[in-house]
């Protein structure tokens, strides 16, 4: 589904990603973890075509990313940014409807089909009741679900999420990931999420990738990956690892 080959990205002043090679199969639920500044968000933005790599290649469905038009890419992948703020007072419905943009031409009026897709996306993320509300007045959890619905309205095969739950409380974190898991099963999505919450990632994600200093230092299932040695090496913290009593997934404690 997603394949990265020798991907390098530099900011004008410093190198960031060094020769990233990664294969993300269809239907994965992958978490990218790593310290601040390790290049996690940049990696997502490269896959979404928001940033462009200096060298290396990204393939989506075996096709190089640079051969995709912006619209075609937006039909294939949806993106939930880390912060979403707007100064203008759009309603939740209007924000989710923007997800139909890659399917619309300038002259076409809104089609009934678009309205159905928007409605379904909002129901799937449980924000349908908020449709008339102005997004500037929504809570953090509601806003994130609206932005997720907007990405879903693109009918994507891939969802890319950049720390989607960092600003949310415990209930909404869990709730958000539950929605993601349901979506993945029902819509056959491939999900890549960047997160700082290792336990949340361990609980929900099947695969993990650990980034440090712009390079992949480990990848595998949470059970394989989350060890005292790895956390010490990557995050420079001494931790204890326990097993989740319900599903046996590893949990990290200070």
């Amino acid at each position, binding site marked *: 589904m997603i394949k990265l080959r020798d991907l390098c990205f530099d900011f004008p002043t410093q190198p960031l990603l060094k020769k990233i090679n990664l294969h993300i199969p269809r239907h994965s639920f992958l978490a990218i973890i790593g310290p601040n500044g390790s290049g996690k968000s940049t990696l997502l933005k490269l896959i979404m075509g928001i940033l462009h790599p200096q060298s290396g290649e990204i393939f989506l469905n075996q096709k190089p990313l640079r051969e995709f038009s*912006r619209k075609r890419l*937006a*039909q294939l992948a*949806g993106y939930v*940014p880390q912060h979403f703020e707007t100064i203008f007072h759009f309603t939740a419905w209007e924000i989710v409807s923007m997800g139909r943009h890659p399917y619309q031409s300038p*002259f076409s009026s809104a089609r009934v089909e678009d309205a159905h897709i928007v409605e379904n996306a909002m129901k799937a993320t449980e924000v349908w009741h908020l449709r008339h509300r102005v997004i500037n007045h929504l809570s953090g959890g509601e806003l994130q679900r609206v932005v997720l619905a907007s990405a879903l309205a693109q009918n994507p095969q891939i969802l890319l999420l950049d720390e989607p739950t960092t600003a949310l409380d415990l209930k909404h974190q869990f709730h958000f990931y539950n929605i993601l898991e349901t979506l993945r099963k029902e819509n056959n999505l491939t999900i890549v999420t960047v997160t700082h919450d290792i336990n949340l990632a361990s609980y929900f994600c099947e695969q993990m990738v650990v980034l440090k200093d712009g390079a992949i230092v480990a990848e595998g299932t949470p059970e394989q990956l989350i060890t005292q040695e790895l956390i010490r090496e990557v995050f420079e913290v001494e931790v204890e690892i326990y097993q989740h009593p319900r599903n046996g997934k590893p949990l990290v404690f200070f």
Partner: protein
Amino acid sequence: MNTKSLIIIACAIFLLMTLIGAPLIGSQSLSPTEVVRYLQGEETSQGLIFFRIRLPRVLLAVLTGASLSLAGVVFQALLRNPLATPYTLGVAGGSALGALSVIKAGIAFSIAGFSAVQLAAFAGSLLTILLVYLLAMRLRRLSIHTLILAGVTLNYFFSASILILHYLSDFTETHQMIRWTIGGLDVVGYITLAQTFPFFFIVFFIFWILSKSFNVLSTNEELALSKGVHVTRIQTMSLILASLLTGTVVAISGPIGFIGLIIPHLLRLLGGPDHRYLIPASVMLGGGFLVLADTIARTIIAPVNLPVGIITTLLGGPFFLWLLVRNKGPVY
């Protein structure tokens, strides 16, 4: 029918009423029957005043008001800044410097119906747009904030240059300069209008086509990219078109203030930020509003013609403040 359609219809009716009503009002009131008789081929003096003097002025007001409001909407959306106006990137400052230099030099000629001051003002704005364009071309690496900062810096630079001109001028020149800077709708012929209206319609049409993209762009740049919007292309093209339109009307009417700021905000308060509604509505409301302001400017202490630039702010300022205060909940 939804609120937005109702507002658009209301704006259209308002524009039509000002278009027909304003030329009848003035130091001499005109009777509609006399005007109709002129249309039927009779040389009435009232018809002459209507068609030769007042109608061109009203049409210029529509063109200027509509252009400034349209540019205001687009600047606010693209710069994602509620304080943005058509003049944020320095277009008016550049125009003023051009116009005032010619006034100072005492050059007077006219080409194709445009005076030396108008031509110099347009040249000044073109120069500014070129600078903005060079900056906008670097938008791949420059942020919108950098662009705004560059615009503000340009404005300071132009203000300082204008102050030097003022300082070196005598009273007559200074008087002329201040009159230009306030902005006014002095008599223009139909030729000037015929030369500028088509450009306005082209820009309006392009912006209307882009209105869905403006919606996405006005939220968040990265989100817009992820929704398939050609961000850099649309930003560069729209900033230049909006600047060109602003430069054109400023060259003819001077930097009339406030319209480009409040008309878009007023309409957002009433019907929300959807550009499919905002663009046509602000064109009509902006056009009508400037006609109204100009009619007041012409009549309030007739036979003296106050410059319309003063009236737009004197009239619009308190009204908009009242709206902001009355509006429940935060606006921005």
